[in-house]
């Protein structure tokens, strides 16, 4: 593509890459948008950490039920085949390797796949972690969806995370507005670019990049 992706376009591309029939957890914030681009015939089942499988779209009007919310505490709906369960079961699904894919936002991802997304380390910031660390270690595949640079222009794919870590070597793909990255064996593969080139990205990120998907 010839220009950087909008948030909606990023969500479309993540949705495209989620295998049919997967059990998927979408993190709060931007990743929630991915749900809008998962067609019903793909049979993806959404998990929400607060205790539900088979989560439907956000509720509106008369559908709103304060007892039926997602991880971002927004009202949602249930789909046929949905189930409810308590928190220990919900996190057994996450930690126990039962979810195929999770999609999270991030402050930083290292070339080794380390993830930092819960705390900026600012001493005045109030830390909050939620289920991010459980997803990082437990989901079979961890996708990150974020802008490639922060608002000050700092790269968010980095040689080493400087923010406090969420999990070690857990991220396998990073979807950004400028490129899609695959992380494998400490190598960073660029599978798609949007309005830029691998050469330009390598210069801006100051990390070695390999054009094309990882060989396997």
């Amino acid at each position, binding site marked *: 593509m010839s220009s950087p992706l909008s948030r909606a376009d990023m969500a479309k591309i993540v949705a495209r890459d989620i295998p049919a029939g997967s059990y998927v957890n979408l993190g709060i914030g931007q990743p929630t948008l991915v749900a809008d681009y998962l067609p019903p015939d793909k049979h993806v089942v959404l998990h929400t950490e607060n205790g539900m499988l088979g989560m439907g779209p956000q509720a509106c009007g008369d559908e709103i039920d*304060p*007892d039926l919310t997602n991880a971002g505490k927004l009202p949602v709906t249930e789909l046929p085949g949905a189930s409810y369960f*308590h*928190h*220990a079961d919900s996190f057994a699904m996450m930690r126990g390797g039962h979810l195929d894919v999770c999609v999270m936002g991030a402050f930083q991802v290292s070339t080794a796949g380390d993830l930092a997304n819960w705390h900026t380390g600012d001493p005045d910031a*109030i830390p909050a*972690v939620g289920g991010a660390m459980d997803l990082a*270690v*437990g989901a079979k595949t961890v996708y990150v969806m974020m802008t490639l640079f922060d608002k000050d222009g700092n790269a968010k794919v980095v040689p080493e995370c400087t923010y*406090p870590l969420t999990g070690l070597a857990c991220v396998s793909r990073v979807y950004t507005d400028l490129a899609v990255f695959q992380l494998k064996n400490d190598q960073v593969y660029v599978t798609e670019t949007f309005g830029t080139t691998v050469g330009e990205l390598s210069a801006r990120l100051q990390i070695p990049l390999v054009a094309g998907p990882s060989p396997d």
Partner: protein
Amino acid sequence: MIEVCGDAGDALRDLRDGATVLVGGFGEAGLPFGLLEGLLRCSARDLTVVSNNAGNGDSGLAAVLATGRVKKIICSYPRQVDSWVFDRLYREGRIELELVPQGNLAERIRAAGAGIGGFYTPTGVGTPLAAGKEVRNIAGRDYILELPIHGDVALIRADTADEAGNLTYRKTARNFGPIMATAAKITVAEVSRVVPAGAIDPESVVTPGIFVNRVVLASGPARSGPARSGSAHPGSREATR
């Protein structure tokens, strides 16, 4: 037979200074608002509260924190757009925070209820939240030791109770209720209705009555019609509408 308390104050009559109080809920879903109002009227101080969040807005758990009678909160996600009560207390150094990854929080509560002395989990390995915790390599993977969280009292929100103390829940309001019920010396459930024993299908019971000591009827309107299993049963008591 379960004890059906007349009001939340009665249900919390033996709460002591220094108690650990498990509070169900994820955001406002499953938060036992009536019991938290009862907690506001108690005089017990130096409480430790265990809950996923640290209060929203000015009611519920936030109102309890605002009394200054909570010295410590153990939770996974205190920072929210409307957590200003906690934010202020934390920044003023007036409340201690133990931040726990959400799954470790749930499992520590579950472990307490199940008589488990601790468990090794991969969640948090290599992060600041593993600081000071024992690390053990099992079959090539690193885990950290997490210890159980016992409560003196658990305050949870369920949907229907029967007179044997069996509970059902509603949708994602179930969240921490079933595990917190197992982990405290006294479990109090705020419910939308109390039905006679036998009116909940035993196959549909989520929390067996052995884990429940007291119930109190919620004062707000029930969010659903009567449970399918308990509908229009003679002897049922409903929350006021």
